[in-house]
């Protein structure tokens, strides 16, 4: 089994925004793409399934949008911004391991047509998120 070592420093790229519940969000052509952070995929371990939302679903910032499962855990994924789901990453159905391998790229979850793009400003930037991760790691 290819357990990901929890000592590995998580990758936190600068050009993404982050929710404290470990989702990332990124604006492209007025749509917001959503996934989970490297820190989140490391703590989950090998992802075996992503229960994606359906295109057309309404999501609300901070509310559950979908679920990601590893062998020993299931975690809710919260929408970082409100809006309508316009695309989901169907490739994850066949290859959930992409969430582990490329959390910020091919491992994206869904895209939202946001109701209010300014909600992006409520999210953490890379520095803020890094501090947040460190404080969570210290709690153990």
């Amino acid at each position: 089994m290819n357990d990901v070592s929890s000592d590995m420093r998580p990758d936190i790229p600068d050009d993404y925004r982050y929710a404290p519940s470990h989702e990332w969000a990124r604006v492209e052509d007025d749509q917001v793409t959503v996934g989970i952070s490297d820190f989140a995929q490391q703590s989950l371990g090998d992802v075996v399934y992503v229960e994606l939302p359906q295109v057309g679903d309404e999501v609300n910032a901070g509310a559950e949008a979908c679920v990601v499962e590893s062998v020993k855990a299931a975690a809710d994924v919260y929408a970082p911004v409100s809006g309508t789901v316009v695309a989901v990453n169907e490739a994850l159905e066949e290859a959930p391991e992409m969430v582990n391998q490329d959390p910020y790229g091919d491992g994206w979850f869904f895209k939202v047509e946001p109701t209010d793009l300014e909600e992006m400003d409520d999210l953490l930037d890379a520095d803020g998120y890094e501090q947040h991760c460190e404080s969570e790691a210290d709690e153990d």
Partner: protein
Amino acid sequence: MLTSIGAPSIDALFDEIEPALKTSHFDGIDEGVDEMTMIQEMAERARRDEAGPCFTGAGCYDHHIPAAVWDIAARGEFMTAYTPYQAEASQGTLQLIYEYQTMITGLTAMDVSNASVYDGGSALGEAVLMAVRANRAHPSNKTGGPRRIAVAGACHPHYVDATTNITRNQGIELVPTGTTDGRVDLDALTGMTGDRMPVAVIVQQPNFLGLIEPVDEIADWASANGVLVIAVVNPTSLALLRPPGEWGANGADIACGDGQPLGIPMASGGPSFGFLCTRSSLVRQLPGRLVGRTVDRHDQPGFTLTLQAREQHIRRGKARSNICTNQGLLVTAATIYLAIVGATGLSRVASRCHERTRKLVGTLTGVNGVRSHFAGPYFHEHVIDVGQPADRVADAVAELGIVGGLPLGRYFPDLRNCLLVCATEKRTDADIARFGDALQQVLNG
């Protein structure tokens, strides 16, 4: 041991419990007895319930159980193991469940099965909850209105009760469509349109009254209207009857029932086990345990519990069900039963039950005042009308040493003169003649 602990007495080990809570003794519980005395007492009671031939079915059947089944199932290695959470130390149980999943999906012609739920009644409850989760497209999910589940035709009333009680607190409502001639009223079912369109439809085959339901029509109507089909089936009958996976053009979505006919004694109705099967696409909605085949570090094949993230120990409040302990040992027996009888043996059992029941109906309807209540084909149960209140007739027949069918008035007032009778492969010509004579004596003196 107390010295190692550093405690003066066993009582001291309970010193964190406030004294007022401690019961000094249990009034009302007797002194214990030795094993021999206990067995003698229990045997005296068991003897009181020994009865002659059983002609009652209604969800629990007196089949022959090959001797080897319980010799093997009751081995301590199966009986005294826990749930196979430590896979490497539980390969016996795990592989057996994988074989069971294969056998029960083969019988029902469904894709996947879990490792059991409690019994047939609660299996139907779980099936309904599953259907509500699975049918995400149903309008009731948007409107927040009640989620209606149609009960087509004659479904076991105890199953319907248990299911109602298990699902009631989640805004689910079971709606019976009513019957004509003991079978589904198809017009009433297909008249459930618009707001009344159910999330799922339950169909029992053969139905509670022993009759054959038009399952293809029901399944096709359902799939054309975005309604999921929940099949309740008797596993023995599946050796002869078309399995739920082949109902209509698309098959049923969920199949469930009670595994008791597969090598499990009647034992007052439990323990047996509930089986629950579905399509591959709904596997993540299944409650309960699942076993998968995988490999170990040396690439050797092995078996392990899988998709556990659906279950309560991981998903907690969002689990597919609260089920934890299931009916593992009974699944063990059923798996060994199916291995021993095979497809040929099971179809012999089924055919013989069918033949014995026709013989029984012929004999009983030969008694003056007795007639068959419903026309049409039946599998191994049938409703006979005895011309007077059937509960009294059943009691009188019992006095003559025969368990003579289930009086139906309690469930269907207009069938108060009717008995639901069954003959399994175990009922001999002599047994049947004895029931006929007893009925003759009770009805005609």
